[in-house]
């Protein structure tokens, strides 16, 4: 691993050294290093690129890190990662992709992640996306996330696109059985001429299922963003969808939250807001001695935290 590798890993997975617990580090389309533990097994797939991550039932307080880095220009890396989370397990999964593209061809990573979460299991999934490098080639990330939650399973997902991703289309779908709970927190910042689209569909199929989808974004320069979350209530359930965007410069943001109830006992709410940075907030911070630009950055940083 060289310095670019370690910096990318630090940005996307807060990794300063080899992580504790199970891990798989993928670089430029191939596995770089991998470790399984007694309770978490990581098995490379034989039929297509990717890995199976198998977490034994009842595993507690363990973590899996599966970062991906791309440093070669012109790569198109497609990978399938399947998670099998045993009943009553409680684990942290840190994923993420960092692209350093110094060349003139596009670098692309499409991660297809499927989660099978067993009864009463709990996962916290953190995914950060980041791009850098001064080549003319694009940095493209099109993640697909599929979540299946058994009864009482809890899934918390934090998906963050930090900076430098030229084009992204995120597709997330989830199926929730009775008493399952899904919390999705999405944070996105686009700048330059970047484009980002996020489609999320959550289907609440069992009584007592609940979901909360919170999307916060900042669109700068002439970037474009589209959000399309949809919560579908097929049983006695609760869901809350919230999209909140700060728009700056010549950016475009489109929020299209949708809610569908196929059951009279479904309670589903959506809220969406798009607006400039509030002027009073800017002025307040300027009275602390900050310039307008410093104040803007503090507000954006807090908003996307």
């Amino acid at each position, binding site marked *: 691993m060289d310095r670019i590798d370690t910096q990318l890993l630090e940005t996307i997975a807060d990794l300063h050294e080899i992580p504790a617990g199970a891990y798989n580090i993928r670089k430029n389309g191939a596995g770089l290093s991998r470790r399984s533990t007694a309770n978490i097994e990581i098995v490379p797939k034989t039929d297509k690129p990717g890995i199976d991550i198998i977490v034994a039932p009842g595993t507690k307080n363990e973590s899996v890190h599966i970062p991906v880095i791309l440093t070669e220009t012109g790569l198109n890396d497609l990978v399938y990662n399947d998670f099998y989370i045993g009943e009553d397990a409680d684990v942290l999964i840190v994923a993420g992709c960092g692209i350093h593209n110094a060349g003139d061809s596009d670098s692309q990573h499409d991660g297809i992640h499927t989660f099978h979460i067993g009864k009463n299991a709990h996962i916290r999934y953190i995914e950060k996306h980041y791009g850098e490098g001064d080549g003319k080639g694009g940095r493209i990330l099109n993640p697909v996330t599929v979540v299946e939650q058994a009864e009482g399973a809890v899934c918390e997902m934090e998906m963050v696109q930090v900076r430098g991703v030229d084009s992204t289309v995120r597709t997330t779908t989830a199926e929730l059985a009775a008493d399952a709970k899904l919390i999705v927190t999405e944070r996105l910042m686009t700048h330059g001429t970047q484009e980002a689209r996020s489609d999320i569909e959550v289907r609440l199929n069992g009584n007592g299922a609940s979901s909360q989808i919170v999307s*916060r974004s900042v669109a700068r320069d002439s970037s474009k963003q589209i959000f399309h979350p949809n919560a579908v209530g097929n049983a006695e359930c609760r869901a809350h969808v919230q999209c*909140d965007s700060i728009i700056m410069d010549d950016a475009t943001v489109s929020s299209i939250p949708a809610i569908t109830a196929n059951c009279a006992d479904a309670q589903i709410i959506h809220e969406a807001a798009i607006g400039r940075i*509030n002027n*009073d*907030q800017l*002025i*307040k*911070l*300027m*009275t*602390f*001695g*900050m*310039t307008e630009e410093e104040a803007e950055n*503090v*507000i954006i*940083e*807090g*908003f*996307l*935290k």
Partner: protein
Amino acid sequence: MLKLEQLSFQVPADGTNLEIIDSVDLEIPTGSFTVITGPNGGGKSTLARLIMGIEKPTGGRILFKGEDITALSIPERAKRGIGYAFQQPPRFKGLTVRRLLSLAAGESLSKDACSAYLTAVGLDPDEYLNREMDASLSGGEAKRVEIATLMARRAELVIFDEPEAGIDLWSFSMLVESFRTLVGEDRRSVIVISHQERIMQLADTMVIIAGGKVCQSGTRDEILPKLLGEVDGRKEA
């Protein structure tokens, strides 16, 4: 400390100019406690915003410690030592009370230092330090955080805009004590815009602003009995 000379602020309205602040002359001595009061819509907040640089005057000058600051920006005035607690504090998504206090102080404050500022306005640090200054705070809570941030600024001239608004009786007593400390031990120059008699009791100087003009100013003993007399319809003593 602060001198306003023929300060005016007009806004265009229906083809004419509306005089919001009209040729105000005012002097705030160093280490003084001034209470500005007067009817709603009289121009008190506008005057404070002019001093802070949030509004630009259409006439007159503002002198701070002998320097003409009329053309200076908000951060430039802040750096010279002027601070202002808003009548209606803005809310911030994602900024904790602790972070806001540190931003106000211009340095990363210790937990103990933050706690002291919160306690001074009657907020329990354990409960509020890590709360976000967002819409989930009640009006009175946000108001007290706003006052605490101005205390943390440690500015030489501090302006509080109706600090009593929405604040319960218990916190109000603490606030009065904190104001006493600001002028007493800390030797700040304090301007409080207020409608509260208990705050007026702390003043050395009182100014009444109505219709954009200073209509009365003087020592507390000159102004306060007259004011209370007018309001109560009592006979002047």
